[in-house]
């Protein structure tokens, strides 16, 4: 996904080596994908449109809370 838009970046983070980061986002199972520092989360493997929906939801939520 990062390849399709320069605004999107993707980190692969190894949980055992960076436990603080995993703790911060409450990682309990892998893979877990965190969107914009916790605004959205997807646990497990997923179809690409599922992650896309979660990204859009996270963006919308951020915009709504900024507007409030």
């Amino acid at each position, binding site marked *: *996904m990062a*390849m*399709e*838009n320069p605004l999107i970046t993707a*980190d692969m*983070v*190894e949980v*055992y080596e960076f436990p603080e980061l995993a703790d911060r986002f409450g990682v309990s199972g892998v893979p877990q994908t965190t969107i914009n520092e916790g605004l959205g989360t997807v646990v497990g493997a997923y179809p690409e449109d599922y992650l896309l929906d979660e990204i859009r939801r996270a963006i919308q939520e951020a915009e709504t809370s900024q507007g409030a």
Partner: protein
Amino acid sequence: MAPLLNEDNHNRVREVFKEMQSPVDVVLFSSKANCEYCESTQQLLEEVTGLSEKIQLEVHDLDADRDLAASYGIDKAPGFAIVAKPADTPVDFGIRFYGIPSGHEFTTLVNDLVMVSAQSSGLNPETVSSLQEIKTPVHLQVFITPT
């Protein structure tokens, strides 16, 4: 240190690397302080990148080369970027790995190298057009384990 990849691994990786197109740089930031997996990550990357003449590995020190690390947004070691180099100007798609990519993640690494080289995500066209409509920064962090 004994090799991390065996002959069978080499053959499988070489098979996937046949799809490589543009040259790719792997830019690793390592650290001497408190980094259990830095050495083995570097060794693994040396072994993998050695399997294609299209892949070049750069190794930097996270502390000594702080500014360069910051330009890649890398703040942890071992951390590395996979960058396409179709011409002299690198194309950074924002793909980073933190920690040793072993086990399942080794497959992810090999596939990502080919994807970046081909500059093609392989996602379906509807997903691609939706992604391109996104106007705000999106930071994805995929938490994984080596097993």
